[in-house]
């Protein structure tokens, strides 16, 4: 497949891994922000090709994992209403709320539709004028422009029965929070290419400067990831720290101006609670007042309840790179993909799911 096979080519991958082996003279710890990168690392076994002293730490970049319990409970209560058709990405259906998940609501008769494009929710609203249609708009900067466009079109089409439950997250404030934490062990970051293809990477310069960390924008194929790691290692070895774009085939410094304009038009920046991590200032998006008629929280006048997770699973520590999935006593035992205790085991991008799914033969006996 063009534009994919080239970046999975065995010879080039081995060459690049060799180059990293030769370049790294000290132990380094690099965080890949995005869960998609975590999965590629585990799927291709990239860690096995790297120097043992080079540690890859998995970041909080999984939209399913970070969606707060409060939001999940809201989603579940909306989806349970007889007058509501609840539209969601498939990944969210298995995420546990306080007492059940959306799949359980569906099994109990809730009308939950799995979407591939948020725009499809508008058609659902048009076809069901006597029902309330709620779109569960979750994700990072990657999915936000499509949700912004959906909001604009809903207004244009005058859909009075359509609303959006927004739970958007922004990546740079999370990097800031990780860097600022006194417990942080991260020396360099791989920034997520698809996020930067929307936002550009201008806002990473200040982060890199103020925390003295290299930030390298890269993609999701094995060759992209190794190339990003090599760029990090080179900077670290030379005591440098700057923003580097190693994903130029998709990312421009200014990002995608059209998508950014849509975001600006529809959303404003707000505080956001990250599941397992807690509140991070300026790390979320909410609908601007001009779009508040579409806000499901307002339409159904639902009050938010504070986060009250207390089961003792380690997702927060895992998503901040303080612990690895196999440090959790429940990993692979009580907590498995078919019976997740926490969101990181649910999502196709969750660190625990990646560790479980792609675990090596030698480690399987331990679980």
């Amino acid at each position, binding site marked *: 497949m063009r534009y994919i096979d080239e970046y999975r080519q065995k010879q080039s991958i081995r060459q690049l891994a060799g180059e990293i082996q030769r370049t790294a003279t000290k132990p380094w710890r690099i965080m890949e922000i995005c869960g998609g990168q975590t999965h590629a690392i585990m799927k291709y076994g990239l860690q096995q090709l790297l120097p043992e002293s080079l540690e890859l730490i998995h970041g909080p970049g999984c*939209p399913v994992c970070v969606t707060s319990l409060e939001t999940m409970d809201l989603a579940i209560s909306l989806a349970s209403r007889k007058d509501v058709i609840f539209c969601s990405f498939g*990944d969210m259906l298995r995420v546990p*709320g*306080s007492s059940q998940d959306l799949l359980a609501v*569906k099994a109990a008769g809730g009308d939950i539709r799995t979407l591939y494009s948020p725009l499809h929710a508008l058609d659902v609203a048009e076809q069901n004028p006597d029902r309330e249609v709620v779109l569960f708009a979750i994700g*990072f900067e990657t999915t936000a422009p499509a949700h912004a466009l959906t909001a604009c079109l809903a207004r244009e089409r005058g859909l009075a029965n359509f609303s959006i439950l927004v739970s958007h997250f922004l990546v740079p404030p999370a990097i800031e929070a990780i860097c600022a934490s006194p417990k942080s062990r991260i020396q360099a970051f791989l920034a997520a290419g698809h996020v930067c293809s929307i936002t550009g990477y201008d806002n990473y310069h200040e982060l890199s400067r103020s925390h003295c960390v290299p930030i390298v924008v890269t993609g999701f194929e094995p060759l992209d990831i190794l190339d990003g790691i090599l760029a990090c290692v080179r900077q670290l070895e030379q005591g440098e720290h700057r923003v580097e774009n190693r994903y130029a085939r998709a990312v421009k410094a200014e990002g995608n101006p059209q998508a950014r304009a849509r975001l600006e038009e529809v959303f404003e920046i707000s505080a956001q609670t990250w599941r397992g991590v807690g509140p991070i200032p300026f790390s979320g998006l909410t609908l601007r007042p001009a779009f508040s008629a579409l806000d499901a929280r307002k339409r159904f006048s639902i009050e938010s309840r504070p986060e009250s997770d207390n*089961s003792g699973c380690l997702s*927060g520590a895992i998503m901040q790179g303080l612990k690895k999935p196999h440090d959790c006593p429940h990993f692979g035992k009580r907590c498995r993909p078919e019976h997740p205790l926490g969101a990181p085991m649910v999502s196709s991008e969750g660190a625990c799911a990646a560790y479980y799914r792609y675990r090596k033969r030698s480690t*399987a006996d331990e679980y």
Partner: protein
Amino acid sequence: MNTDCPLPIATEQTIRLGHGSGGELTQRLLRQFVLPHIDNAWLQQGHDSAALPIGNTQIAFTTDSFVITPLFFPGGDIGELAVFGTVNDLAMSGARPLYLSCSLILEEGLEMDILQQVMASMGRAATATGVQLVTGDTKVVERGKGDGLYINTAGIGLVESLQTITPQAIEVGDAILLSGDIGRHGIAVMAQREGLEFGFPLASDCAPLHQPVQALLNNGIDVHCLRDLTRGGLATAMVELAETAGLEFWISEDHIPISESVQGACELLGLDALYAANEGRFIAFVPAAEVDSALNLLAAHPVSREACVIGRVNAVAPRDRGRVIIENTLGCERLLERLPGEQLPRIC
């Protein structure tokens, strides 16, 4: 900073869609709620159909229900599927498929024209596979209580070969053959169901498999086990067989054929072709020495023209039994799991 994790969800109290995915949830449902009440030696074989001694002959007996939406999809329809699916289950016991039953569950409001088309398709599929639909039943349920049309078929076939074709017959050193590229059915149906257009053709692999299987058996290939790949895909079939056989399978990702269309759709949707459904593919376990002859025989049939070797059965310590190792293109190995529940498309 709060680093707590979400509360665990108690084990499901009701049936979820995932219980029908053919993966881990299905297995658990069978183990906990079904098998304890009806267990017997034939169920314990864990095979696609039961091989029953009746008089001096050996009969294979199987059943399958078809609840697919949409009823018509690129590369097939529910009628064809209902015949081929049961024919294939019989073929996987090494049996020559002979007779099928046909139970229809129709939803009030179904257009006669649709029923006509589906039945015509069943008739054609039966003729093409040399089976006869010899008994049946028809029920109608109220509107809203069915997806238009469900079909159940049961089938019997005659086991003429003396070979025992079961998971228990798999031996260390066997080669694992795959009859063609994987994932077509699951991806084509999903694309049709959700109205996804990829700009390249996607069609189900829906096809009968009895002919290539008969070719192997009639030409004296010492086939140890056969399994058609259905729900849960190649990965789930491999794990099920490894567990039932109590052996370790090793397969190479590089050797598993996946068409560019299926791979492309999987890339876009975040799905894994190893877990996507198939309706016209099977795996065969044969002694390593017979691989070349087996591949030549398979290549003579259009449905298995691209058959290839994807791995082998390993000698292992007892603790390693019942697992499947997959080696990726870089030579890194990992464990293969069965599908946990449903495959859900990712977010971004």
